[in-house]
């Protein structure tokens, strides 16, 4: 959670820590052989999972950042600029993960210069670029707390489309259209959780309460989509889908499923659903952290071949009873480095572009509370 009490000194200290983490991660990655994604035997590895997680967070944050204009949620106005900045940092990080995955700028160039418009990958890139450009255009609006209804609606719809396209890519892999809804929900969840982290500790209940209620509803929706499919499939009997459902619920990898249900579902849901009179609490901050971790885990286990579903035989990896892929130390070090870079970009940009005003004073006059 951001706080006025942290002050500029700690902010520069955290920037330094993030810079060291980034440099150390990149160095370790280089020493360990600079692994890229497409050169590996298994496609859709950790880099792609991190890309999808950052895209979810970026798109979700931009949708939240535009909410004061789109749905008139004015209590969110003071956080709109910060959300916009962090979203842009997430999108930059996502772009770097794609570069790490494809391995060389030339490969990326091929993808950009000879696009096949029927490919969802190309649509993903197009919506990603559009979200970034529109997000950047929205930045002065959100920082200066101006009104731009048209732009905010277009930005929100493009971000929604980005989440839908990414969900449809995964839906092809799993032959399950529910993933589209799941991606939209996890995008909004990641955005909402990051927003809670951006909120000052002395944020008024007018901001925190609706945010927590929104997060609780989104988690309930995520639980619904996650449980609906395996539970209904169970009734399909001795079919391939039914067998898959049983493997998810009671197979060798079911602990992963239940851990995910716990960290992205039950635990934060309990926290966010509790009635609170006060502003932002420590518990809510932790719950937001669990949500973020849960979204990352969600992307990892739906993307990484058979981490979750041993019944899905992925190409290029022989069918075995165990997971076909485990991210290497090199991949983890670059992932941590790039996530640190996202944090670093945000802290540096926030330091130069955002002027801190006490949280209560940022609310519209009629919503301010007498302390």
């Amino acid at each position: 959670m951001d706080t006025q009490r942290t002050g500029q000194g700690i902010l520069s200290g955290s920037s330094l820590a993030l810079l060291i983490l980034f440099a150390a991660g990149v160095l370790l990655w280089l020493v360990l052989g600079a692994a890229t994604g497409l050169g590996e035997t298994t496609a859709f590895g950790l880099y792609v999972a991190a890309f999808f997680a950052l895209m979810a967070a970026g798109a979700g944050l931009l949708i939240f950042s535009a909410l004061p204009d789109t749905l008139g949620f004015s209590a969110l106005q003071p956080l709109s600029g910060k959300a916009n900045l962090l979203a842009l940092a997430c999108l930059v990080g996502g772009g770097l993960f794609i570069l790490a995955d494809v391995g060389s700028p030339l490969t990326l160039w091929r993808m950009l210069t000879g696009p096949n418009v029927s490919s969802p990958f190309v649509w993903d890139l197009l919506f990603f670029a559009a979200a970034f450009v529109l997000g950047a255009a929205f930045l002065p609006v959100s920082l200066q707390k101006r009104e731009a209804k048209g732009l905010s609606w277009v930005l929100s719809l493009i971000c929604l489309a980005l989440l839908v396209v990414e969900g449809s890519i995964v839906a092809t892999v799993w032959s399950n259209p529910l993933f589209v809804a799941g991606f939209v929900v996890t995008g909004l969840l990641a955005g909402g959780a990051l927003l809670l982290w951006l909120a000052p500790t002395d944020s008024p209940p007018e901001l925190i309460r609706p945010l927590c209620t929104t997060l609780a509803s989104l988690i309930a929706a995520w639980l619904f989509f996650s449980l609906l499919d395996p539970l209904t499939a169970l009734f399909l009997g001795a079919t391939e889908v039914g067998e898959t459902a049983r493997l998810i619920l009671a197979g060798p990898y079911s602990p992963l499923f239940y851990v995910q249900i716990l960290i992205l579902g039950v635990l934060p849901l309990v926290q966010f659903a509790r009635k609170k009179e006060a502003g932002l609490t420590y518990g809510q901050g932790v719950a937001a952290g669990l949500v973020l971790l849960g979204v990352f885990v969600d992307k990892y286990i739906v993307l990484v071949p058979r981490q979750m579903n041993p019944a899905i035989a992925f190409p290029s990896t022989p069918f075995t009873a165990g997971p076909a892929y485990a991210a290497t130390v090199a991949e983890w070090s670059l992932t941590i480095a790039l996530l640190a870079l996202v944090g670093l970009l945000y802290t540096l940009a926030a330091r130069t572009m955002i002027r801190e005003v006490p949280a209560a004073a940022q609310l519209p006059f009629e919503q301010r509370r007498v302390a």
Partner: protein
Amino acid sequence: MRYGMVIDLDRCVGCNACTVACKAENGTPPGIFWQRMLLTERGRYPFARLEATPLPCMHCEEAACVKVCPTGASSKRKDGLVLIDADKCIGCRYCMVACPYGARSFNSGARPYYPGKGLTPYEKVRYQEHPAGKVEKCTLCSQRVDKKEEPACVATCIAKARFFGDLDDPNSEVSQLIARKGGYQLLPEKGTKPQVYYVGGGKRRWIRRELAKASSAAQVSLS
């Protein structure tokens, strides 16, 4: 002109001559099979038997691989052959995920057939046709088709179980076989409209499940 193939499962003896002929013709590295053989044990002892289903690329009319390929490296020729332009392929493997038949393989680098002995002169020459970091698959022997020859698997099949020809010509051997013996495609529900038809074999309905379980090249090949 729409090239296609018919495989008669009542005639196929599962000898894998087609698999080996494909390897010889196309010089594929170890672990990469453009023509695979799905071997499935059916029934219970003492009536158990092994059923063989040859699986080439289906050269689908509505090829899922072509639709999803971001660079246009996978494309369909006018004569129906689905081919990959290795220069354009970035190795993203989205096509492999999209293909319901597991027909594609990723070439992660030249591996020798004799581990520890390095590449043989033959391998050094042939592997130039198989660049690392790219996806590859059956081409229906486009190099032979362009010379008006049959694909190597068809020419080799000892049981005369494979037939090749123009599906658009109602008088071609393949069209006649499909009409006469009730030709069917694998996984028609995927909407890919395969150009490889099967006849006989009791319309292997179980194949959907087996394909989902064993779509990797290693699983369904000679291994």
